[in-house]
């Protein structure tokens, strides 16, 4: 477990600047809270909150999709995997790293959202439920991207991830609603996007459990694929 944690913390450290840039969006929401008339502009605040929330899903795809590629391209992966670190532990570290990076963002957004939206009358417990949904959506999206990045470059990995996450959403709209739960990133994002002051919604847990299970499944699949990859071969 120790190597997994070390790799995760190291990943977050390496991604500190993108995380910092992401946190500027949260700062934007905080500024809006400071300099606006919250009760009168609460709908605008909620709109910004939702927008800022879903950006991080895209970022988690980029985090996951580029992690292995960057490490292989820089050849830093060789020094790490020359230690007593199995491939699956290395991948677990990256999944945990993506989750921590997203978690930092979700936590900052949760704090800012509790303050701004809470003051406007939105239930604070609901804000944190949305943050849990967001975090699990990021974790699943990041793991899917990581799985593709074990054998594709980041550009194709991001495209493939978008397809895998998007197709069930399309099927959910076109065929049957249940299809969207095949990969429940869209339903989790939808919970956030559909929240309103009039109908904050109730906690609906099944998609969250499904996201955890699917994250595990994609992690196992990633580990299997990654164990077959020649990591010392130059990446293009």
């Amino acid at each position: 477990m120790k190597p997994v944690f070390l790799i995760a913390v190291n990943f977050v450290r390496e991604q500190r600047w993108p995380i910092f840039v992401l946190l500027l969006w949260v700062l934007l929401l905080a500024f809006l809270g400071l300099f606006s008339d919250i009760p009168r502009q609460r709908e605008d605040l909620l709109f910004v909150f939702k927008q800022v929330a879903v950006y991080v899903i895209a970022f988690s795809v980029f985090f996951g999709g580029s992690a292995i590629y960057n490490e292989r391209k820089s050849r830093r992966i060789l020094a790490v995997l020359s230690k007593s670190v199995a491939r699956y532990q290395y991948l677990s570290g990256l999944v945990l790293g993506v989750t921590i990076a997203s978690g930092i963002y979700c936590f900052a957004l949760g704090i800012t959202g509790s303050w701004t939206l809470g003051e406007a009358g939105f239930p604070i417990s609901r804000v944190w439920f949305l943050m849990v949904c967001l975090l699990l959506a990021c974790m699943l999206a990041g793991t899917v991207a990581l799985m593709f990045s074990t054998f594709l470059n980041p550009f194709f990995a991001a495209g493939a991830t978008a397809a895998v996450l998007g197709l069930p959403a399309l099927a959910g709209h076109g065929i049957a609603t249940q299809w969207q739960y095949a990969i429940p990133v869209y339903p989790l994002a939808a919970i956030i996007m559909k929240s309103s002051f009039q109908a904050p919604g109730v906690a609906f847990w099944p998609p969250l459990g499904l996201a955890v299970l699917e994250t595990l499944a994609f992690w196992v699949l990633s580990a299997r694929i990654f164990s077959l990859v020649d990591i010392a071969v130059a990446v293009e």
Partner: protein
Amino acid sequence: MPGAAPVVNARLWILRTFQKPCQSRVLGPFRIGRMAPALEFENLSKEYRSFPRRCLRALDDFSLVVEAGEIFGFLGPNGAGKSTAIHLAMGFMRPTHGRGRMLGQPFGDAHARRRVGFLAENVSLYHRRAERLVRFYGALNGMGRTYLAKRAREVLIAVGLQEQSKRNVGRFSRGMLQRVGLAQALVNDPELLILDEPTSALDPAARVMVRELLLAAREAGKTIFLSSHLLSEVELICDRVAVLHRGKLVRLGRTRDLLHSSEKTEIVARGIAASAFPEAVAHDGVVSFSAPATAQRAVLEQIWSLGGEVVSVNPARRSLEEIFLEVTAAPGPADEKGRP
């Protein structure tokens, strides 16, 4: 001698860097039975395939055994397959055919790597302070915090970076980066050190230091598998060498056996003219030249018949460079599968 104290101190640090294998703090005490080979390559082949139907055979039926406690030189021209063999041993790649064992475990075993130190060619490390970086890599090997802190300081002293331990390695020169790379390879007090071009970017003083370090490691019973293009260095420190050419092992043997040619003899004589023998050189009244070992007796009789005196007769000593050029100049093993 005013300069002797620092040299002695440095030597002591180097020796303290290594513990006998049975004392390893990382592994705990363990029993030494009959020493298994440190590295075994068994009929390994590796082919790189690329779209659409290109195939490059980097290693072809390669077999080699590296015994525990030796410094083994692994030589070959660029593209010979040296790094491929090392990467297979470290588990970075999977062989197309064959198998191998490292410290008694199959290649790629993560537990076996706990007892291994590895330095890659063109080392690339995270941009952190040197000491923290070495501790990070040590912690990946499961080392405890207190011992690791002490050990990181020790290895940084051993590679001559004690003054730079608080500096970020992102600002290091290539030579310094290579020394940090060596420090991270040594931090777990490994039984087996696998070094891919460890001195390529180092200045002469640092090379001497690394050489001392490797010899001290051998004294402590460690095994060193050294891939290098610096043949003079390999000649100085390696017990055995192997030369790889186009994916095949073309020469293997003890360094001293390879360097002493059984085909030629070096003869030194006095009291004869240098012109009496082709390629003879006269210096300070003695004439030296080499002759085929089969003609040794006839040559000696010729010296005596000319009224000369034989000073010495020795097997001719060749340089590793000569051997290397000889075995790699010949066309490599036939490779119909795409090698240019």
